[in-house]
C-alpha cells in the first residue's frame, strides 16, 4: 500500500509525460517508415533465368498440381536440352521456383509476393480461380512482369488495360464458342440425346458451366429434365441419382472433377442407373475406375490435348519424355500438364528471338507472333491480347475403347 499518493504522483508526472512522447514518436516513426518507398527488390546476379511459379502442391487441387509440376519440368528439359536460352552467345539455363499456394487465396498472394521480392519477372500461375484474383492484384498494375496462366479468372482481364502482358494459356472455355459450348455441341452430335440431366457442384466453375450448358442444350432442341447443384463436399450421390432416375435422361452431365465424378459414377453403377451416357469437362478416364465396366458410354472434354492417346503423333515426343523421366505413361488426367508445357518453351523461344531477358514488351509481342517451337505438343497461338487459341479435344469412351476427336478451332 502506498502511503503518500500526492508525492508519488508528482514524482512520476514528468516521467509519464516523457513516456507519452516516446510512444507518440515511435508511432510516427514506424508509420513514416512503413509509408516510405517500395522495399528494395533482391536482384541476384545469376546466369539462370528463373520463372516464379505459384500453384497448389498441397490441398484439394494438389492432384492437378502434380501434373502442372511435371509439365513444367518436361518443358524445362526441352529448353535446357542444348544449354538453355541463348542470349548474346551465352546459354542461360531456365529454372523454375515453385511456391505451393495450398489452393488458397492467401497462399497464392504470399507466393506471388515472395516471387516479387526475389525479383522474378516471369510468372507462372496462380491457377485456381479465387487464388488468381487475389494474387494478380499484387501484379496487376506493374509493368515489370509477364504472367502466364491457364486460370479461368484471368480471362476477364484479357483485352483490358489490366491484362497487359498477361497470357492465358487455356483457350476460352466460357463464351459463345468457348470450350463448354463446344462440349454441349459435341455431346449432341455424338449421342443425339433428347433428355439431359445436369448435376454440377456449387462452386465458381459450376456457376460458369450451368448457364452455358443450359443454353447450349436448349439451342440444340434438347430438353433439360433435371438440373441440380450439390455442395462441393458431397460424396453421397444416391439421393441425386434417385431423383435423376425418375426423369429418365439419356445423357447425364456430371461434376467436372474426378474426385466427384468417380463416386458419382460408382454409385450410379451400383444402383443400376447405367442406361444413360455420362460426361463432363475436366474429368478423365480415372472416373470410371470404380464402375466395373457397368457404364458403357462416357465422354470428357480435354482442355488441352489428350496425353494418353498413343496414336497422336504430335504428342509422341512428349509421351516418350514423360515415360523416360517418370517411369510411367502419362495418366488420363495428365492433359492438365500441357497448360504450361508449350507456353514455357514458347517463352524461351521468344526471349531468344528478342535477344534480351529484360525487354518484356518485346518478349510479350514476340509471344503473340511465335507459331512454332521445338517439341511442340499443341498448336497454340496467342492473340494480341494474350489469349490462347487452339482446338480442344473430346474423348469418347465406349465399351472399353477411347476415341479422341478435335473440336473446331476457337
Amino acid at each position: 500500500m502506498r502511503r503518500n499518493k500526492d508525492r508519488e504522483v508528482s514524482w512520476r508526472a514528468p516521467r509519464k509525460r516523457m513516456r507519452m512522447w516516446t510512444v507518440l514518436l515511435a508511432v510516427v516513426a514506424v508509420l513514416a517508415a512503413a509509408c516510405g518507398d517500395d522495399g528494395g527488390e533482391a536482384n541476384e546476379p545469376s546466369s539462370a533465368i528463373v520463372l516464379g511459379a505459384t500453384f497448389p502442391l498441397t490441398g484439394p487441387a494438389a492432384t492437378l498440381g502434380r501434373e502442372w509440376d511435371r509439365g513444367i519440368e518436361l518443358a524445362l528439359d526441352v529448353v535446357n536440352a542444348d544449354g538453355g536460352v541463348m542470349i548474346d552467345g551465352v546459354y542461360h539455363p531456365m529454372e523454375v521456383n515453385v511456391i505451393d499456394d495450398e489452393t488458397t487465396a492467401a497462399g497464392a498472394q504470399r507466393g506471388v509476393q515472395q516471387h516479387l521480392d526475389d525479383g522474378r519477372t516471369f510468372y507462372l500461375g496462380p491457377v485456381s480461380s479465387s487464388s488468381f484474383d487475389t494474387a494478380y492484384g499484387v501484379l496487376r498494375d506493374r509493368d515489370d512482369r509477364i504472367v502466364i496462366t491457364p486460370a479461368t479468372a484471368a480471362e476477364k482481364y484479357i483485352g483490358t488495360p489490366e491484362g497487359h502482358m498477361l497470357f492465358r494459356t487455356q483457350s476460352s472455355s466460357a463464351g459463345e464458342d468457348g470450350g463448354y459450348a463446344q462440349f454441349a455441341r459435341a455431346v449432341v452430335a455424338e449421342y443425339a440425346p433428347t433428355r439431359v440431366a445436369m448435376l454440377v457442384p456449387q462452386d465458381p466453375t459450376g456457376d460458369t458451366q450451368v448457364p452455358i450448358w443450359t443454353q447450349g442444350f436448349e439451342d440444340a432442341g434438347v430438353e433439360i429434365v433435371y438440373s441440380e447443384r450439390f455442395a462441393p463436399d458431397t460424396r453421397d450421390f444416391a439421393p441425386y441419382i434417385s431423383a435423376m432416375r425418375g426423369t429418365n435422361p439419356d445423357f447425364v452431365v456430371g461434376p467436372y472433377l474426378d474426385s466427384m465424378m468417380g463416386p458419382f459414377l460408382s454409385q450410379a453403377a451400383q444402383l443400376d442407373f447405367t442406361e444413360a451416357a455420362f460426361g463432363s469437362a475436366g474429368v478423365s478416364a480415372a472416373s470410371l475406375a470404380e464402375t466395373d465396366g457397368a457404364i458403357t458410354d462416357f465422354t470428357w472434354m480435354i482442355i488441352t490435348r489428350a496425353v494418353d492417346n498413343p496414336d497422336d503423333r504430335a504428342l509422341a515426343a512428349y509421351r516418350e519424355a514423360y515415360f523416360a523421366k517418370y517411369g510411367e505413361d502419362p495418366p488420363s488426367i495428365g492433359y492438365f500438364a500441357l497448360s504450361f508445357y508449350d507456353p514455357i518453351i514458347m517463352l524461351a523461344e521468344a526471349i531468344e528471338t528478342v535477344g534480351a531477358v529484360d525487354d518484356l514488351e518485346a518478349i510479350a509481342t514476340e509471344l503473340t507472333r511465335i507459331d512454332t517451337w521445338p517439341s511442340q505438343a499443341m498448336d497454340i497461338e496467342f492473340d494480341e491480347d494474350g489469349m490462347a487459341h487452339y482446338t480442344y479435344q473430346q474423348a469418347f469412351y465406349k465399351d472399353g475403347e477411347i476415341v479422341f476427336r478435335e473440336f473446331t478451332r476457337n
Partner: protein
Amino acid sequence: MTASGRLRGRLQVEIFWPLLLAVPVVASGTLQHYQWAVNGVIWGLWALSLNIVWGYAGQLSVAQLALGGVAGYTTTLLISLHDVNLVLAVLAGVGTAVLCSLLLGLASLRLHGFYFTILSVSFAAVFVTLVTNSDTAGRTAGLLVDRGRLPVVDIGGLRWDLDSGSGGFFALALVVFMAMHALAVLLRECPAGRAMFAVRDDEALASSLGIRGATIKILSFALSAVVASVAGILQIYSFRLIVPEFFSFHEALLSLLLLVVAGLGYTYAPAIGAVVYVVLYQAAPVEGEWRVGLLGVFVILIVLFFPDGIAGGIRLLARRASSLVGRAARWSGRSTARSDYAE
C-alpha cells in the same frame, strides 16, 4: 496508482509493444513480410473480437467471423452495386454487423454456455450457406474488392498510399489494430468492462450487485461486432476478394485456438495471438501439409503447461521476476519495504 494513471500506463505499454514488433517488419521491407504482418494483424483482430465477447463477458461465440463477413459483404455490395463512398460503406457494414450481433446477444439471454456456443455455430453456418447460395454475393466465387479505392493520404509532405503492398496497407492495418486495441484496453478498465468480467465469473452475484446482465452481454456483443467488422473489412481489402470461405467454421476454430493459447481475457492476448500466427502459420519454414500439425503441437504444449495461455505465463514469470528483484533489493539494503507483499 490512480485508475486513470493505470489506464494511461496500460495504454502506453500495450500500444508501444505492438509497435516494437512492427519495427523488424518495416526494417526488412519485403512484400512478403509486410503481408505476413498484415495477416497477423487481421488474426489479432479476430482474436480481439472474440476476447471481448468471450474473454471479458464469458460468451463463447463462434460467430465472430460470420459477423465480420456480414460487414464485409455489406461494404463490398454497397460499393460495387451502388457506388457508395468508401467510408460510408464501411460504416454501413459495421452497422449491419452490430445489428446481427444483437440477434446473437438476445439468443445469449436465453441459452447459456455450451448451448449458446452451438447456436453461434449454427448462426455462422447459416450465414455461410446463405452467402454460398446467393448470386448477388457471388456464391462460392465471391466478389472482387477494389483496393484501388483506398485513398492516398497526404500529411504534410508525407504520402501514405493505403493501397501499397510495400508498407502503406500495413501502416493502415497497424493504425486500425492499435485503435481497436486501445478500445479493448479502455473497455477493460471502464465500469462496463469490469461489469463484463463480473458477469462472466458469476452472473448471479453480478446481478445481486446491481449489474444488469442482459445489457452488459448485449453490449459486449455489439462491441465485439465492431471489432469483427473491422477485421473482416481489413481482411477482404488485404486479399482484394471476399469469399464465404474466409468466414467458415474452420477459420473460426483457428481464432479460438489463437486466443486461448495467447491468453483468454488478457488485453494483450490478441497481440500475442497475432505474433503466434505470423511465426507459426506464416513464417515457419515448413511444408504446407505440416503447418497445421505444427500449430497443433504448439497449442497442446502451451495448454498443458500454461493453462492461462502465453499471457498468463508472462504474468507468472513477471511476478516471479519482480519478487526475485524485491528479495534481492531487500538483501542489498536498497529497499526499506518490510515484506515481499508490498504492492
